[in-house]
């Protein structure tokens, strides 16, 4: 029997169906579960109260990231420094106790492997192509970059996965985003995904899983793919993925949790069979010309509020939809921006290079390339570089990138989520602007009253140097 052509998503889904109910709801097996300190304590507590155990502790990995201060974690004598915020300390202590008591592997706050959960998963080879990966964090979509079906879940679902290693789900619709042509110089995966979200809107992918297709993605590094897939949720899609290929296999081979020997060969054979079949159909399809994309920045309080760096702050009147017009007016008021101001005239006081979107070694290299031999502008009050993991940090230091950041006036920090969501002490002060490589420019996201401009690591470095949002291409090759 010739089977119906299927997409990458459909192949992964089908391989994980435990049972299908008459109403279409499926019990889906979960291969990998990542746990951090913020969305798990209530789940562990509920298991304990119900007398339930973790079904497959071997398929779960825990690491703290959201709450950890990014300042030094150990004293000169090697002892652990206490965390000042009592609530943060309690939440971290809960994970540190819960993981071993339920038999789960735990990477502690001072381990060299510690980092942002979405950096750690692929880096450790815990995240693998063709697997279902969940975590109580919406940016789990990132792991789609290695060809996994990865999505964020709430705490009740965390508890459900811990207890049963499954989730009750309905299949999503499929959406293809095909990018044709090549990205220009200075245009990065971050610019591409910001541009995509601007096109489809923050609800454009709701109910869908996105597959990113086209040569741009085939040529893109694995780290770049992780950046793109990471922000799928900002386009409303719970997951986004890219077909696993040789680049992914090379990236994963030999990593600590990855299969080895004969298992590795078998795994690669299966992974190669997952690419979308030629005649498979998508429910929705969007085609984008790569040459249309320029370095992109956000101006508002929603990730769909983006414009090319050469553009201007839009006027509310330029939007057709009355409710969007009202939202834009509110956004500009919050952001302290005047319509028609060229984006390059917007001054910034803070620079944040980090987050699960842009804190991997290539991101730090791209920023360091721009910063080398330069210094942050006098108007830039605070600039921090926060590596995505201890291993990224070590690699960067081996390459001397830490010196470049420090010489440019940046603080070189310990790994964690940091100023992306400002749960730890790294906050942007009220009314101040931040050029940020993170993923959300929501009201108050980087601290109450903070004003966020999303951009790529190279663009963040350029803004640090000039003190304004700046087209990085003007600083390249100088």
């Amino acid at each position, binding site marked *: 029997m010739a089977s119906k052509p299927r997409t990458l998503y459909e192949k992964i889904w089908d391989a994980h169906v*435990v*049972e299908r*109910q008459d*109403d279409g*709801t499926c*019990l889906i*097996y979960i291969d990998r579960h990542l746990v951090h300190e*913020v*969305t798990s*304590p*209530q789940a562990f*507590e509920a298991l304990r109260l119900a007398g*339930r155990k973790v*079904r497959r502790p*071997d*398929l779960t990995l825990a690491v703290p990231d959201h709450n950890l201060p990014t300042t030094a974690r150990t004293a000169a004598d090697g002892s652990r420094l206490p965390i000042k*915020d009592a*609530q*943060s300390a309690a*939440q971290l202590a*809960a994970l540190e106790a819960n993981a071993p008591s339920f038999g789960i*592997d735990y990477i502690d706050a001072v381990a060299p492997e510690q980092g942002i959960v979405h950096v750690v998963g692929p880096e*450790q*080879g*815990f995240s693998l192509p063709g697997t279902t990966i969940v975590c*109580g964090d*919406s940016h*789990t979509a990132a792991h789609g970059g290695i060809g996994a079906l990865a999505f*964020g*879940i*709430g*705490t*009740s*679902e965390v508890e459900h996965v811990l*207890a*049963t290693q*499954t989730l*009750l789900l309905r299949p999503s619709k499929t959406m293809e985003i095909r990018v044709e042509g090549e990205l220009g110089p200075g245009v990065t995966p971050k610019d591409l995904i910001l541009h995509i979200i601007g096109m489809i809107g*923050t*609800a454009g992918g*709701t*109910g869908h899983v996105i597959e990113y297709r086209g040569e741009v993605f085939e040529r893109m590094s694995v780290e770049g793919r992780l950046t793109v897939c990471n922000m799928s949720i900002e386009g*409303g899609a*719970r997951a986004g993925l890219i077909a696993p290929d040789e680049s992914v296999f090379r990236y994963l081979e*030999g990593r600590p*949790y*990855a*299969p080895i020997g004969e*298992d590795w060969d*078998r795994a690669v054979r*299966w992974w190669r069979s997952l690419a979308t079949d030629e005649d498979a159909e998508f429910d929705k399809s969007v085609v984008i010309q790569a040459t249309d994309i320029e370095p992109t920045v956000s101006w508002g309080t929603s990730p769909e509020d983006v414009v090319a760096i050469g553009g201007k702050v839009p006027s509310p009147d330029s939007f057709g939809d009355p*409710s969007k017009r009202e*939202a834009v007016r509110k956004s500009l008021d919050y952001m302290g921006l005047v319509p028609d101001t060229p984006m390059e005239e917007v001054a910034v006081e803070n620079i944040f290079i980090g987050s699960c979107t842009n804190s991997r070694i290539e991101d730090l290299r791209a920023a360091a390339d721009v910063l080398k031999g330069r210094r942050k502008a006098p108007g830039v009050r605070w600039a921090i570089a926060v590596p995505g993991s201890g291993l990224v940090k070590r690699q960067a230091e081996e390459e001397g990138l830490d010196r470049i950041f420090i010489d440019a006036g940046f603080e070189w920090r310990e790994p964690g989520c940091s100023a992306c*969501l400002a*749960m730890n002490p790294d906050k942007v002060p009220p009314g101040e602007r931040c050029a940020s490589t993170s993923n*959300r420019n*929501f*009201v*108050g*996201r980087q601290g109450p009253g903070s004003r966020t401009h999303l951009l790529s690591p190279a663009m963040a470095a350029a803004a640090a140097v000039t003190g304004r949002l700046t087209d990085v291409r003007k600083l390249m090759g100088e």
Partner: protein
Amino acid sequence: MEAVSTIEGRAIPLGLKNIDTDVIIPAHWLKTVSREGLGKGAFETIRQTPGNPFDVEDFVGAPILIAGDNFGCGSSREHAAWAMLDLGLTAVIAPSFSDIFSGNAFKNGILAVELPQEQVDRLLEVAKDHPITIDLENQVVTTPFQDRFAFEIDPFRKHCLMGGLDEIGLTLERDAAIENHEKQRAAGLPWLDTPNKNRREHA
């Protein structure tokens, strides 16, 4: 989870689009290890604005919220649902919801009712002075006037909500099927199991 059938009462006419979960509960409230007490932080930035609908006396303790498109977009934090429950909200009416939020709402017995924008606009108007009723069994939203707006809901979710069912309990009853899947998986894709074994061998 408590069984849900009919929700009746005042509805807060908020009406904004793209209410993200950072707006529903800002990150600094997430440092808790409990599900309780988050109502204090619910919609914090909106509630700091003078004249916001949450401050109107008639809406204190209202069980329903009416919002715009794409309600609950952003983070997966279930704290958003817990904060709303703690504030007394057990239903949200909006033209659309983010996927993760609607799942989190459902797990906590909060009804997420999707209605077309025109009907939401009508309810925003009525809600200023009158109560609204959501009848889950008959899948209809009514007002004291002639309005009768039918809504769709996933039949499995409806069944769980009306029965107050514990989803984990239900899934645990499927243990044999899960075990069977695990056996097939171990035979076909054995490298998926015990990833930390490889880690030890590498070390």
